[in-house]
């Protein structure tokens, strides 16, 4: 630990020196922040960086896309200052590392896409139990009576369903399996939820790598079904995939739109605890979309020095205010945080030192 701290500090010093030498005009050396983690948050960070560094010339922010698990692990080890994650920290990790914070930065959602020749312009209605049945191999045909019952009047093909799941660890798998667990007790008892779960053996089921892999696998396989983060909804639409209406906790079928995801977020606001570790999946509300989530920054309250701590706070506060502008968020189909959540986040940010 000592050695790594030393290495990190010397590395940071060298970087700072390089930056100082490079920017000979500026008065003092820049503070370097490194962000790593969620590939879903990465495009948003890339939109943020130029504007943030323009407004705060004293702070250098580097972003990398590695995966939520890496974001969490490296932030805990102190290798990076900001870990990005689609999932909040688990109880186990918080117990082991009480100084770690989960701070929401924005709201994301997930679409259930399907490739049904001739029906891709129809928003097929699906529910948690139906999806759990498909992904556990109990529902194998598109004209299964459960799917028929949810879609009266739709001519569903008598064809085998190809369920596609993520092979890599993913926040999308986390919220998708959380939806199945919350809506279907049988799924909660057997598979449960996580960034990578032990998928039940389904003949013909496919694993795909990354959201882009999900889009191409769904496009290449007629009669398939896939869960894809909304930041990839443009690609999914371009590939001609259909979007399903999902049954929410109140029994209504909804599409992922700003209005329905907003309802889900608003219904969670009052229940959000001070540490903000809460699932937004299967939230109540007449038109609430059931698969939405907070996108988190995973931060260690104890930063190596005061300058770094100030820089981290500056960035997080910027992200919650200027950064939550729709001009950034709409490009990745995210939604801004409700005001009450921003207040909670700012209280958490104040703990960083």
């Amino acid at each position, binding site marked *: 630990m000592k050695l790594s701290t030393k290495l990190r500090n010397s590395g940071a010093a060298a970087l700072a020196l390089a930056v100082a030498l490079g920017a000979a005009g500026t008065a003092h050396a820049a503070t370097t922040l490194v962000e790593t983690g969620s590939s879903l948050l990465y495009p948003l960070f890339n939109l943020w960086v130029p504007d943030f560094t323009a407004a705060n010339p004293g702070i250098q922010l580097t972003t990398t896309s*590695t*995966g*939520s*698990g*890496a974001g*969490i*692990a490296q932030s805990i080890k102190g290798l990076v200052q900001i870990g990005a994650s689609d*999932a909040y920290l*688990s*109880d*186990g*990790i918080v*117990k*082991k590392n009480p100084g770690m914070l989960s701070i929401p930065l924005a709201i994301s959602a997930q679409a259930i896409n399907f490739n049904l020749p001739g029906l891709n312009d129809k928003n097929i209605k699906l529910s948690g139990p139906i999806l759990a049945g498909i992904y556990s191999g109990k529902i194998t045909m598109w004209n299964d009576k459960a799917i028929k019952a949810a879609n009266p009047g739709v001519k569903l093909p008598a064809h*085998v369903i*190809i369920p596609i*799941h993520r*092979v*890599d*660890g*993913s926040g999308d798998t986390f919220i998708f399996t959380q939806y199945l667990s919350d809506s279907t007790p049988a799924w909660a008892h057997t598979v*449960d*939820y*996580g*960034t*990578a*779960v*032990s*998928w*039940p*053996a*389904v*003949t*013909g*089921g*496919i*694993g*795909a*790598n990354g959201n882009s*892999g999900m889009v*191409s*696998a769904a496009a*290449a*396989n*007629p*009669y398939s079904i896939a869960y894809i983060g909304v930041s990839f909804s443009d690609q999914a639409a371009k590939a001609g995939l259909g979007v399903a209406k999902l049954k929410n906790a109140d029994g209504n079928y909804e599409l992922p739109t700003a209005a329905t995801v907003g309802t889900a977020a608003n219904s969670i606001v009052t229940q959000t605890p001070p540490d903000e570790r809460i699932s937004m999946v299967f939230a109540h509300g007449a038109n609430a979309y059931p698969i939405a989530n907070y996108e988190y920054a995973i931060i260690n309250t104890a930063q190596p020095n005061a300058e770094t701590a100030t820089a981290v706070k500056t960035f997080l506060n910027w992200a919650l205010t200027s950064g939550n502008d729709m001009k950034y968020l709409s490009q990745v189909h995210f939604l801004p945080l409700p005001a009450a959540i921003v207040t909670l986040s700012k209280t958490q940010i104040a703990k960083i030192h």
Partner: protein
Amino acid sequence: MKIRPFRLSLLGLSLFVPAALCAVVLFLIIYSGQAIVFNGLGFLSRITWNLGNLYSDPVTINGIQIPLGANYGILVFIIGTLASSLIAILIAVPLSVGAAIFLAEAVPELERSRPRWMPPIRPALSMLVELVAVVPSVVFGLWGVAVLVPFIGKYLAPSGNGYGLLAASIVLALMITPIIATTLLDSLMQIGKENRESAFALGATHFEVVSKVMLPMVRTTLIGGIVLALGRALGETMAVLMVSGGAINILPTSIFSPVSTIASFIVSQLDSAESDPTNMAVRSLAEIALVLFVITLAVNATAKLLTSGALSVRNRK
């Protein structure tokens, strides 16, 4: 005793590679120690891989902390690795033997009727073959996703799904064909003129010269090339991850079934494993890496036995 600085420095350099290898193996063994104890031998024969619930409190079994419900079994990945590599070899060997014989034997015939203005054919062709060997594997993976997978899905697979064992094997075969072909070509070119000519003088046809005289002479090189290729196929990660269909908890039933290989599975699981507070998931991944290492070692040892002639029928007298 006289100190010889040159020899000493050479000794140091030559020890560096084996030392690095030992360090890696030692690290893997020590790091995965707890997982080896917890998983037992069933690790190799169980079909179920489950990281367990990383979001609830860990449980303690036999004094070892693991996530609730965690169960690590890697039979699916061992079979996926061996099957995809072996099928790749089956595809690649005839291809590369054919290519090498063509370049060594048929091209000189063509060369004779080559007009003056044309550049020599063989160097150009063999350079093309070698060029395939340096294409980054992710490029093969992309080609697999864009061309091969839709093709298999549309024309070959009864389920209409192109991701799986066959796609992975074909992508691997393309990657390893130049390895076998170039090693074989080099040794075919080194066969003495007198061997070929005496065979021709005895009245052998061109086919007989190649199949009965030349190929037996390069048998050892061929096996060596295959082993080199197998080493690459067993460890290939990215391209396989992109086209194999990433099977988990299910054994392949046909050549079109989705599979996972050890190397690609380690890559795909590492991120989630890192958020395991008990660290058992990462330790189990290290144990899988150890298994892959043992498999590669076994392949190499078999090749050494084959090439040394210990298993050769002819030498048994």
